[in-house]
C-alpha cells in the first residue's frame, strides 16, 4: 500500500528554496496548518505534480506550469521548480523526482513551451528505466482514481452529481469509482471473452462454409460476422468520439464557468443594446406625436390674452347691438307716427316725437353702415377667438412631453450602464468568448447525434446477434467435417463469456452493498443528526441520506454533501484493491464544529495515512489534538516570510 514518507519541494509556488515535510511511517493523521494564500493548495498540487506532472487550479482545469515557479526566484532570474516524493509501496522504497526547468537556451521563459518537464523513479535505490517507471507509477496510483486520494474539500460538492445519472461529472465519477473498486479487471476480461467468442463463431462459420450441407448457413453467418465486425468498429469509433465530445464539453463548461462573469456582462451589454434600440424607437414615435401636437401649442400660450380680448369684444358687441336696436326702434316709431310705443304701449307724446325726429335726422345711412361693418368685424374676431380657445390641450401635450422625456432619461440611464460595461469589456476578447459559447452549443449537438448513433448501432448489433443466433441454431442441428471441434470451442467461450457477464453484475451488486454498508457506518459516526439512519446507494454509487422512518432526505446542504462524500471516500478506501494516503485541502470549510469533531475522530478509520491541509479556524489545533490523540502523527505550519515566500516548519506550540 502506498504511503508517503517525505515531500521535498524546491521553488514550487510560495515555497522558496528547498523545503521538506517528513511524514511518520506510523498510521495516522498529519495536519498542516496554513492561513489563506499561504500555499495549502500548492502543497496538494506538489504531490499531484510529482505523480502526474500536472497542477490543477480551482475546479479541474490544469494550470500553466510557467506560473507555478516561485515568483521571488523568478524575479531574481531563477526559473523552474522540482518536487521529490519519498514513499513506500509493497515493502519497496521509492523516490520519485519530477522537475520543470527552462529548456536549453531559454533565458527568460514566458510560456509552458519554454519549459521541459522530466522525472525519474528510484526503486530501492535503483533508478528505473522510463517505461518501467511509468508502469510503476500507473500501478501505484493511476491518475484516473487520484481524485479519491488527492482532493480539494471544496470540490466534494461534485459528488452530488452521482445522484443524477445524466450528468457528465456523475458519469465520470461513477467510472472512477468502478475503477478504484477493481471492476475494470472483470469487465476487461468479459470484453476479451466476447472477442474470443466472436472469433470462434467466425471460425465455425468458416468451417461450415467448407461443407456442402452447411455451406448456406456458413455463408450467411460469415456475412453477419463481417457486418458485426463493421458495426463493432463503428460502435467503438462512436463511443470514442462521444467520450472525446463529453470531455470537450466538460472543458468548455469549465472555460465558460471561468468566464461566467464576462459572459454575463457581454449578455447584459447586448440586452442593453437591444433595449436602447427599443427605447429609441418608442421615443422617436412619441416625439413625432409630440411635434404634431406642438403645432397648436402656441394657442396654449395665448389663453389669457384670448380670454381678455373675448371679454372686451363681447362688451363692444353688446354696446353696438344696443345702439343699433335703439336706432331701429326709433325708426319704427317715426314711420308709424301716432301708434303706441312698442316698449311701454303708451301713446308717444308730441315732445317725444320731436326728439325722435331730431335723432333720426342726426344718424345718417353712412353711419348706420359703418356700425354694421364694425359689428361684423367684432363678430369675426369673436369667431376666431372662439376657434383658438381650447385649440390646444395642454394636458395631452404634457403627457406626450413627459413620455418623450421619460424615454430620453431611460435611454441615458441604459446608455450609461452600457458604457460602463463596455469599459469593463474593453480588453476582453469577445470573439473568443462567443466562440466558447458557440463551440459549447455545437458540442452539445454533436453529443446528441453521437448518442443517437450509439443507440442505433447497438440496436443493429442486437439485431445482428439475434439473426446470427437463429442461423446458429439451425446450423447446430447439422454436422460437418470440422464443425464439431469449432462448435465445442465456441460453446466453451460462450459459456465463459456468460459467466463473466453474470460475474460483473454480481460483483457490482456486492460492491454496492459493501460500499453502502461501510458508507453508512462512517455516516453514523459523522452525522450529528440522530434521526438519520444511514445511506442508500444507487446504481451510479450516489448516496442518499435515509431517515429512521425509512424515507429519503430529498435535499441536503453543502455541509451534508461534504459529509456524505467523505463517507463515500472512506467506504471506497475500505473496499478498493488499491489503497493509499488521503491528502485533503480544506475539508472542513463548510462544516460546523460538531461535524468537524466527528470527522477528525473518524479519519484514522478511513485511511491509514491522512494528510490534512487546513486553516486554524477550520480545525483548531486543540480540537485536532484532543480528538486524534495518539493518531496525530505530525503538525506542521506554513509560515509567512513574505507575500511570495512561505516556509514549511514543524509546529511546536
Amino acid at each position, binding site marked *: 500500500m502506498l504511503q508517503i514518507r517525505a515531500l521535498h519541494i524546491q521553488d514550487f509556488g510560495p515555497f522558496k528554496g528547498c523545503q521538506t515535510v517528513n511524514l511518520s511511517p506510523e498510521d495516522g493523521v498529519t495536519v498542516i496548518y496554513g492561513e489563506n494564500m499561504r500555499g495549502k493548495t500548492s502543497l496538494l498540487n506538489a504531490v499531484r505534480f510529482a505523480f502526474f506532472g500536472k497542477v490543477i487550479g480551482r475546479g479541474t482545469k490544469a494550470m500553466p506550469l510557467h506560473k507555478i515557479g516561485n515568483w521571488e526566484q523568478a524575479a531574481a532570474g531563477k526559473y523552474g521548480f522540482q518536487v521529490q516524493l519519498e514513499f513506500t509501496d509493497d515493502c519497496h522504497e521509492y523516490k520519485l523526482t519530477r522537475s520543470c526547468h527552462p529548456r536549453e537556451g531559454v533565458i527568460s521563459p514566458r510560456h509552458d513551451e519554454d519549459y521541459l518537464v522530466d522525472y525519474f523513479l528510484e526503486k530501492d535505490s535503483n533508478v528505473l528505466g522510463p517505461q518501467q517507471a511509468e508502469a510503476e507509477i500507473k500501478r501505484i496510483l493511476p491518475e484516473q482514481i487520484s481524485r479519491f486520494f488527492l482532493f480539494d474539500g471544496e470540490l466534494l460538492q461534485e459528488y452530488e452529481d452521482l445522484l443524477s445519472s445524466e450528468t457528465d461529472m456523475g458519469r465520470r465519477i461513477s467510472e472512477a469509482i468502478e475503477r478504484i473498486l477493481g471492476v475494470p479487471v472483470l469487465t476487461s476480461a468479459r470484453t476479451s471473452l466476447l472477442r474470443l467468442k466472436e472469433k470462434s463463431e467466425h471460425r465455425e462459420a468458416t468451417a461450415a462454409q467448407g461443407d456442402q450441407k452447411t455451406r448456406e448457413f456458413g455463408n450467411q453467418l460469415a456475412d453477419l460476422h463481417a457486418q458485426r465486425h463493421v458495426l463493432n468498429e463503428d460502435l467503438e469509433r462512436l463511443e470514442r468520439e462521444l467520450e472525446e465530445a463529453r470531455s470537450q464539453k466538460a472543458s468548455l463548461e469549465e472555460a465558460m464557468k471561468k468566464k461566467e462573469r464576462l459572459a454575463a456582462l457581454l449578455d447584459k451589454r447586448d440586452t442593453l443594446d437591444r433595449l436602447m434600440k427599443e427605447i429609441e424607437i418608442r421615443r422617436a414615435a412619441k416625439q413625432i406625436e409630440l411635434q404634431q401636437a406642438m403645432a397648436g401649442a402656441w394657442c*396654449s400660450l395665448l389663453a389669457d390674452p*384670448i380670454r381678455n380680448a373675448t371679454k372686451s369684444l363681447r362688451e363692444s358687441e353688446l354696446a353696438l347691438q344696443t345702439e343699433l336696436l335703439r336706432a331701429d326702434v326709433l325708426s319704427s316709431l317715426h314711420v308709424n307716427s301716432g301708434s303706441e310705443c312698442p316698449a311701454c304701449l303708451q301713446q308717444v307724446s308730441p315732445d317725444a316725437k320731436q326728439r325722435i325726429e331730431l335723432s333720426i335726422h342726426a344718424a345718417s345711412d353712412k353711419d348706420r353702415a359703418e356700425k354694421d361693418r364694425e359689428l361684423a368685424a367684432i363678430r369675426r374676431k369673436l369667431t376666431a377667438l372662439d376657434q383658438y380657445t381650447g385649440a390646444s390641450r*395642454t394636458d395631452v401635450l*404634457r403627457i406626450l412631453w413627459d413620455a418623450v422625456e421619460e424615454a430620453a432619461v431611460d435611454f441615458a440611464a441604459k446608455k450609461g450602464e452600457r458604457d460602463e460595461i463596455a469599459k469593463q469589456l474593453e480588453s476582453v476578447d469577445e470573439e473568443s468568448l462567443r466562440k466558447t459559447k458557440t463551440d459549447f452549443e455545437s458540442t452539445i449537438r454533436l453529443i446528441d447525434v453521437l448518442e443517437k448513433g450509439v443507440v442505433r448501432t447497438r440496436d443493429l448489433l442486437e439485431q445482428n446477434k439475434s439473426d446470427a443466433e437463429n442461423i446458429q441454431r439451425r446450423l447446430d442441428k447439422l454436422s460437418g467435417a470440422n464443425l464439431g471441434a469449432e462448435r465445442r470451442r465456441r460453446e466453451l467461450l460462450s459459456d465463459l463469456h456468460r459467466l463473466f457477464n453474470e460475474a460483473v453484475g454480481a460483483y457490482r451488486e456486492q460492491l454496492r452493498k459493501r460500499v453502502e454498508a461501510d458508507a453508512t457506518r462512517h455516516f453514523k459516526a459523522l452525522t450529528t443528526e440522530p434521526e438519520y439512519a444511514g445511506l442508500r446507494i444507487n446504481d451510479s454509487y450516489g448516496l442518499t441520506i435515509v431517515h429512521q422512518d425509512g424515507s429519503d432526505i430529498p435535499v441536503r446542504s453543502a455541509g451534508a454533501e461534504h459529509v456524505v462524500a467523505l463517507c463515500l471516500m472512506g467506504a471506497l478506501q475500505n473496499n478498493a484493491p488499491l489503497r493509499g494516503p488521503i491528502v485533503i485541502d480544506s475539508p472542513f470549510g463548510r462544516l460546523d464544529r460538531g461535524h468537524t469533531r466527528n470527522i477528525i475522530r473518524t479519519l484514522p478509520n478511513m485511511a491509514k495515512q491522512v494528510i490534512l491541509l487546513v486553516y486554524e479556524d477550520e480545525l483548531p489545533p486543540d480540537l485536532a489534538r484532543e480528538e486524534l490523540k495518539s493518531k496525530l502523527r505530525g503538525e506542521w505550519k506554513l509560515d509567512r516570510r513574505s507575500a511570495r515566500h512561505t516556509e514549511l516548519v514543524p509546529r511546536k506550540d
Partner: protein
Amino acid sequence: MASDKKTIGITKANATALSNLVIAGRFGSELDAAKFAMAYAVKKGTPPGNIEGAETKWNVGSVDPDGSMRSLLESFYPTGEEPYRLAEHLMNEGIKSLAELLGANGDLYDTLFTSAQTR
C-alpha cells in the same frame, strides 16, 4: 390694409435661433416654432412694431390659410392695421426672446406648462 405683407420673413439673426428651436426636437417645423414664438411675444406684452431685414420665409397663405390668425391678432392689437406685418414682428421678437430664455438655461416646458396651467 392693402399695404399689409403678403409674405412673412425671419431676420438672419433669428434664423439660426429658429433652426435651433426645431433641432431641439419639440417642434415639427420652423413654422410651428415661429407661431409659438409669436404667441410667446404676445403673452409677454410685446408692443406692435415693424421688423427690418426679414428674409421671406412663408406666404401668408401658408401661415394663416383661413385668416383666423389675422383676426386673432386684430383682437389683441385693435389699433394695428397690418396684422401680418405685426405677425412678422411678433415672430421675430418671440424668437429672440426664446433664444435668450433658452440660452439662460430656461426651459420651454416651464414656458408652456407653467404659464398655461390656468387653462
